[in-house]
């Protein structure tokens, strides 16, 4: 994090930071304060610190020294509850859940902390030598499938033939073979690795607010891993290539990046859409497919009530003909390509304006106009408010955001900052239940732990929210009633219990609860944690507590 000053009071010294109130526990302590702009936000600094516990601050750099904190430092009524409320709201509603670090260091600075996260437009990028571009991934997957087919092996498409070919091989041998094939299949190995990189990023990031924005936009422009192997291999790359570079940039850029990303073109079938009157169309074969055109209008830009007709859908589909993905055997296989010979010739009206540009320029111009359409501004604003709020509409805020969207030509950094500065979002009570993915990353942040790729994929499948795998192009439902389901809640508990059995040994749960929630932890939960019969039980209860599960 930029611009944090560090004050290190000498043992026994009287710290006199402007505006800082001293709690008695400070005296005689060797403590580290991470803070900034004391003079601006003087309130409520020092809730923490107990003389009775000593522990190395997790994740602190060299020189941080031993630090004391713990549950006794929670002086109800002594810290400023408003400040604490803001901290919790910042960490949970705007962030991805508290980590022991953040919870303590942003007290009194919650909004600045969030705003600062928007300063670096590249903060969301995942730079890791293990990642590959979507074109390379596509080639490796299709290549794998071809090889498998040549070997007569089993894959999704030939599953039905397996029984016949298997002959007298034992079921066990077949199962092992399938397992092996799966291990080598990029659709699974890449998916696992991308999942791990994403969760690691969220757990370790200094900018969890930006990660929440990434989650939002990746879902807005989702391609679903449940669709097929070739989409599954590309879902992580789609987020890295189309979403993350633009998350604090311009909506228009993100829309363009998404609409021409191979994952999207394949997922919503535009990759094979050809104009009936194009050169290729005249020769027969494939023709128009309106799937991508419809979903861009309905889901990505205008919204279903945004004022378009079936004719607009068909015309937009014509406009987008030729936007495709190069065949895997081509040296540039897997990259975006505009097939001129597939493009429907002619000029087409869309939303009352006629597009007569050459070839691909038609689609570029149409997307440009969609990106700055007032319906798009409204649609995006409404979705953002629902996502960051508790799901109930806040018309005044939506209107402000929509206006800002229009005024800034869809500048997402401005939009993101405006969300942070919207008092409405700080005032709504925390009532949303975390989604399974949010629960997993919140557990990761709380425990300073990155689950492995296998664990992420398996657990999220079992909890009903496969990573990058919403059931439809509309993405995951954004309301907690979706997840507020009887047996699903018990399944969460079973997962939390399993995590607890693996990780409880290294954790003092009461200290952790205090570091995460401070006075926001209800007496009742605090008591239950104290009385738990084992560390494992205590940790499972903490992860399942309403304080943890509600946002």
């Amino acid at each position, binding site marked *: 994090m930029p611009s944090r000053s560090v004050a290190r009071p000498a043992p026994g010294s009287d710290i006199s930071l402007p505006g800082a109130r001293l709690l008695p526990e400070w005296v005689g302590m060797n403590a580290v304060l991470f803070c900034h702009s004391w003079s601006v936000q003087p309130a409520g600094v020092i809730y923490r610190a107990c003389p009775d516990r000593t522990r190395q601050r997790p994740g602190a750099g060299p020189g941080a020294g031993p630090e004391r904190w713990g549950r006794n430092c929670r002086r109800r009524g002594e810290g400023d509850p408003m400040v604490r409320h803001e901290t919790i709201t910042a960490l949970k509603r705007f962030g991805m859940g508290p980590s022991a670090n953040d919870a303590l260091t942003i007290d009194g600075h919650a909004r600045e902390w969030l705003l600062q996260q928007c300063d670096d437009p590249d903060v969301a990028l995942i730079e890791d030598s293990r990642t590959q571009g979507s074109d390379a991934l596509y080639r490796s997957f299709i290549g794998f499938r071809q090889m498998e087919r040549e070997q007569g092996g089993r894959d999704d498409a030939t599953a039905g033939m397996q029984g016949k070919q298997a002959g007298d091989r034992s079921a066990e041998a077949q199962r092992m073979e399938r397992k092996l094939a799966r291990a080598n299949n990029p659709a699974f190995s890449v998916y696992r690795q991308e999942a791990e990189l994403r969760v690691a990023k969220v757990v370790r990031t200094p900018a969890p607010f930006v990660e929440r924005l990434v989650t939002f936009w990746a879902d807005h422009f989702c391609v679903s891993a449940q669709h097929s192997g070739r989409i599954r291999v590309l879902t992580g790359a789609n987020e890295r290539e189309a979403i993350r570079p633009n998350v604090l940039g311009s909506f228009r850029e993100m829309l363009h990046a998404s609409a021409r990303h191979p994952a999207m073109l394949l997922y919503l079938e535009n990759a094979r859409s050809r104009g009936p009157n194009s050169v290729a169309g005249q020769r027969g074969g494939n023709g128009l497919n309106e799937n991508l055109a*419809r979903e861009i209008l309905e889901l990505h830009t205008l919204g279903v009530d945004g004022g378009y007709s*079936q004719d607009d859908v068909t015309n937009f589909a014509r406009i987008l003909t030729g936007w495709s993905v190069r065949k895997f055997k081509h040296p540039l296989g897997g990259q975006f390509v505009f097939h001129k010979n597939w493009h429907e010739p002619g000029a087409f009206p869309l939303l009352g304006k006629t597009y007569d540009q050459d070839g691909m320029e038609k689609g570029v111009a149409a997307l440009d106009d969609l990106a700055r359409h007032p319906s798009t501004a409204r649609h995006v604003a409404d979705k953002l408010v629902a996502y960051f709020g508790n799901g109930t509409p806040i018309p005044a805020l939506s209107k402000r955001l929509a206006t800002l969207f229009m005024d800034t030509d869809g500048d997402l950094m401005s939009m993101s900052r405006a969300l942070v500065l919207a008092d409405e979002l700080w005032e709504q009570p925390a009532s949303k239940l975390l989604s399974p993915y949010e629960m997993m990353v919140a557990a990761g942040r709380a425990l300073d732990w990155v689950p492995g790729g296998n664990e992420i994929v398996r657990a999220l499948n079992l909890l009903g929210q496969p990573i990058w795998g919403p059931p*439809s192009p509309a993405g995951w439902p954004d309301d907690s009633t979706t*997840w507020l389901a009887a*047996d699903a809640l*018990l399944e969460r508990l079973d997962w939390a219990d399993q995590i607890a059995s693996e990780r409880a040994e290294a954790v003092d749960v009461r200290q952790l609860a205090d570091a995460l929630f401070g006075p926001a932890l209800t007496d009742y*939960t605090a008591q239950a944690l104290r009385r738990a019969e084992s560390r494992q039980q205590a940790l499972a209860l903490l992860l399942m507590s309403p304080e943890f*599960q509600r946002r």
Partner: protein
Amino acid sequence: MTGFSVNRREVLAGVGSLVAWTQVPRIAHAAPGRDPRLLTIVLRGGLDGLSTVEPVGDPDYARVRAGLTLAEAGIKGIPLDSLFALNPKMPTLGKLYARGEALIVHATATPYRARSHFDAQDILESGNVRPKLTGSGWMNRALQAVTPGDAVEPQKAFAIGAQVPLIMKGKAPVLNWVPPGFSDASPDTKMRLLDIYRHVDPQLADVMQEGLDLDDMLGGEAAVTKTMRKARGMTENARARTFRVAGSVAGKALAGANGPRIGAFDLTGWDTHVAERPANGRLAQLLEGLDGMIDALHQEMRPVWADTAVIIVTEFGRTVAMNGNKGTDHGTGTLAFVLGGAVRGGRVVSDWPGLSRKALFEERDLMPTTDLRSVLKGVLRDHLDVSERALAETIFPESRAVRALDGLMV
């Protein structure tokens, strides 16, 4: 990863959810001596009704559907009457039809006339005339309108899937059920968590208590594992296996003496934009899966089949013409199934509009001539004894003009 959890994931991937309601009153004024069961299955994605039940007797059919008909693939459908033939991938349904236990409503649709899946599903499930009017579903509101008879004790219910679909959301308590995956947390941990919820978050407490009741009812993980293993032996196709498990679990629960009486779940994957191939492709596989699900349901529910009605619906149909990718796009008119021993079946109910260009809706889709709500109303009224007034006002708002179809039930 164990084989078991793979199975479970398949269940979740294919079946959005299965929800059964019962706080369980028997339904008081159903047909005499009947203890009615009602299950609604939503096919998500827009079922191609024309390829499922082909209007082979329509003079325009072969022309408008060139490239998609079963005849072109050299396959003969199961004849239903002079006009219609059933896709042969559905032999179980064919048998039920022949026995008078399956009814097909063709050229039907909800009041929705645009082509968004999501709005169309909203209308189908909410029972409203416009999307996003309420957050509750018509099945849930129907339950609130039922005159309760004796309570079935203990109060039990279940569901498949981690989410509750809109059709079952609402005031009447609904439970969902998720096939077991992780190992169970200890009973003590469960009780302590429930205790925290009771003091801190009553909503979570209620939901969790329901889940615990549900666990009791289904007899624990072992019974479920057995069902899943059995389904695995019966089909190679993962999706079909999923559908079969859904049918088995739902059937088992609904057939139980103390089980739920009302349920809903959905089967995804019907959005056939590409390579639809009703004879041997994606749609064929889906129909085969659906038929297996019906078979599993029928087997599990034999003892109560005479008291049972199963409604199978989808948000809309698909375009009459094939698109450029040998699939079809979102269209309006489609079909619905009503099956079960309580159904007066063996008929295709349809005011067939024809397939000439002029007869199509917007020159594109099968023209709907039967309001789907009149079918749903007919079933709810005659099977569950829901009043016409509740049907017109609260269950399907603004639907006074849509009359319940008579004579759907035995």
